[in-house]
C-alpha cells in the first residue's frame, strides 16, 4: 500500500470508529428506555396514582403520597430557587464582563458540579440539625440549592439570545436598565426562561441522594412540610432494594412516570428555545 493510500485507509477506519462510538452510546439509551417503558407500562394502574402504600408483604397499593410529596418538595425548592436564580441570571446577562460576574459564573458552574449528596449534607446541617427533625422543608432547600445554578445559567443564556436591538431601543428611548429589563428584555425571553425553569424542576424532581436524610421518607399521607415526607425517588429506591416482587413492579412504574415527565419537559423546552433562536435570526 502506498503512503497516501495508507493514510486514507487510516482516516476511513478512524471515521468509522467515531460512528461506532455514537452507536455505543445510543445502545444503552435505547436499552434503558426500552426497559423502563416495557416494565413501566405493565406496572401502571389507577391505584398507583390514587392509593397509599400497602403494609409490607401485601400486594397492591400505590404511591399517591410520594407523588404529592415530590410535588410539594419541588414547590418549596422553586419558591426560593427561581427568584434567586433568575435575578442572578439577569445580573450576569446585563453586566457580562465584570470581574464579579465571572466569579459568580464560575461559582455557579462549580456548584452545578458539586455532588447532590454533598448539597444534601449542607441542607441537613442548615435545616434538620437545628430542629432535630427531618422535614419536607429541608428536602426543598436541598433541591432548591441544586436548582439555582441551572436556573442562573439558563436565564443568562436565554436573555443573551434576545436581539440586542431590543435592549438598545429601550435604552435609547430613555428607559433605565431596570425598566428595559423588566418591560422589554425579560418578556421577550420569558417563554424560554419558563421552560428552562420547568426543565430544572424536572431535573431536581429526579434527585434521590439529597432527600435521603432531609425529607427522609414517610409511609403515610402527609402534607405537613415540617414533617418527614415521602418522595417518588426515595420510594423507588426503597422499593428497588426490597426483596418483594410487587414493590419492584411499583418501582418500575415510578421510574416510568419520572422518565415520561422529564422527556415531555425536555421536548417542550427544545421547541421553545428553537422558537427564540428563530426570532433572533430574523
Amino acid at each position, binding site marked *: 500500500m502506498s503512503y497516501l493510500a495508507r*493514510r*486514507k485507509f487510516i482516516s476511513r477506519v478512524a*471515521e468509522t470508529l467515531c*460512528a461506532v*462510538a*455514537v452507536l*455505543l*452510546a*445510543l445502545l*444503552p*439509551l435505547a436499552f*434503558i428506555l426500552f426497559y423502563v417503558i416495557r416494565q413501566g407500562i405493565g406496572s401502571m394502574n389507577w391505584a398507583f396514582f390514587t392509593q397509599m402504600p400497602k403494609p409490607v408483604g401485601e400486594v397492591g397499593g400505590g404511591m399517591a403520597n410520594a407523588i404529592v410529596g415530590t410535588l410539594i418538595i419541588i414547590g418549596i425548592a422553586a419558591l426560593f430557587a427561581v*427568584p*434567586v436564580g433568575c*435575578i*442572578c441570571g439577569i*445580573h450576569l446577562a*446585563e*453586566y457580562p464582563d465584570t470581574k464579579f*460576574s465571572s*466569579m*459568580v459564573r464560575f*461559582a*455557579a458552574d462549580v*456548584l452545578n*458540579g*458539586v*455532588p*447532590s*449528596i*454533598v*448539597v444534601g*449534607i*449542607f441542607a*441537613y*446541617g442548615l435545616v434538620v440539625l437545628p430542629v432535630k427533625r427531618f422535614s419536607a422543608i429541608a428536602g426543598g432547600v436541598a433541591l432548591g*440549592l441544586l436548582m*439555582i*445554578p441551572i436556573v442562573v445559567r439558563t436565564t443568562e443564556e436565554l436573555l443573551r439570545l434576545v436581539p440586542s436591538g431590543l435592549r438598545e431601543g429601550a435604552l435609547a428611548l*430613555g428607559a*433605565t*436598565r*431596570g425598566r428595559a*429589563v423588566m418591560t422589554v428584555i425579560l418578556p421577550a425571553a420569558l417563554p424560554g426562561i419558563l421552560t428552562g425553569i420547568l426543565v430544572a424542576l*424536572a*431535573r431536581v424532581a*429526579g434527585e*434521590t*441522594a439529597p432527600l435521603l*436524610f432531609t425529607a*427522609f421518607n414517610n409511609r403515610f399521607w402527609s402534607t405537613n412540610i415540617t414533617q418527614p415526607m415521602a418522595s417518588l425517588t426515595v420510594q*423507588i*429506591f426503597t422499593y*428497588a*432494594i426490597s426483596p418483594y416482587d410487587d414493590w419492584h413492579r411499583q418501582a418500575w412504574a415510578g421510574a416510568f412516570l*419520572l*422518565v415520561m415527565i*422529564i*422527556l415531555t419537559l*425536555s421536548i417542550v423546552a427544545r421547541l421553545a428555545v428553537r422558537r427564540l433562536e428563530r426570532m433572533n435570526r430574523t
Partner: protein
Amino acid sequence: MKMRGSDDRTFRIGTGVFAAVVLLIVLGIGFELTRQSLLSIQKFGFSFWTGKVWDPVSGEFGAQPFIWGTLYSSVLALIIATPISLGIAIFISELSPRMLRQPLTYLTELLAAIPSIVYGLWGIFVLVPLVRKLELATPGFLKGIPLFKGPPLGVGMLSAALILAIMVVPFTSSVAREILKNVPSNQREAAYALGATRWEAIKVAMGYGKSGIIGAVMLGFGRALGETMAVTMVIGNNPQVSTSLFAPQYTMAAVIANEFTEAADELYLHALIEIGLLLFIITIAVNGMSRLLIWSMKSRSRHVVPIAPVTPEAVAA
C-alpha cells in the same frame, strides 16, 4: 426628574446581591461541612484518610476503602467513556450529515436527563445479571490475574464502572463538541491545504482544542466522583481495597447515602460528613480546573481574526 444613573446603580447592586448568594452558597457548603465534621477531624487527623477499618460500633473510622472505591470506579468509567465521548463529539461536529446533527445531539443529551435512580433501577435488574453472566463466562486462565479475582456476583466494581461510564458520556461529549465547534475553521482549512486527510485535519482541530478537551474529560471525571444512587445500587457496598473488577466495593458517596440516617452517635455522623467534605473539595478542584481549561480554550478561539473571504468585489478593488 429622577437621576437615571442612580436608578441604574440601584438595579446593578440590587441584582448583584442575589448574584452574591451563589458565591455565598459555595463558601457556605465548605464552612458548614468543616464545622460539622470537626469531631472526626480532631480525633483522627490524617489517619482518617489512610485508615482501612470502618467500624462504627467500636468508633474506629478509616476512609481509605471509600476513597479507593470512588477513585477506582471513576477512573475505570473514564477509561471506557472518554474514547466514546470524543468519538461522538467528532462524529457530530465533523462527520455527520447536517440533518443528523440536531437529533444526535438531542439523543446523547437525553442520557444526561435520565435520573440517577432510574439508572440504578435498571442497573439492579438488567445490568447486574448481564455482568454476572459475563463474569461466569470469564475463561479460567484469566482468573489468576488480580483484575478478575473473586466470585462472579454481578454486583461490584465492573457494574459500577459500566453504569458510571454511560452516565458520564453525555457530559464529556457535549463539552468536547462545543470545543470542536469553537476551533477556527482556518485550522482545518490549513491542514487540508497541506494535503491532510479528513482524519488528519480532525487531529489538527483536536490539537488546537487540546486544553478544552482535557477540560471536558475532567468534567466527566467530576461527575463520576460524586455520582451516588446508581453506584450505591450496583457496587455491592463492601468496604475493601481491591483491584478486582468482580469485587463488591464501596464509594464515598455511597457510604454517606447508606449510613447517614443510621449514624447514632455524633462521632459517626462527623466521620460521614468528613467524607462529604473531602468529596466536596475534590469535586470543586476537578470542576474548577475543568471550567478554567474550557474557558481558556473558548476565549482563545474567540480572539482569532477571521480571514476575509475573497470576493469578486475585493479583487476588483
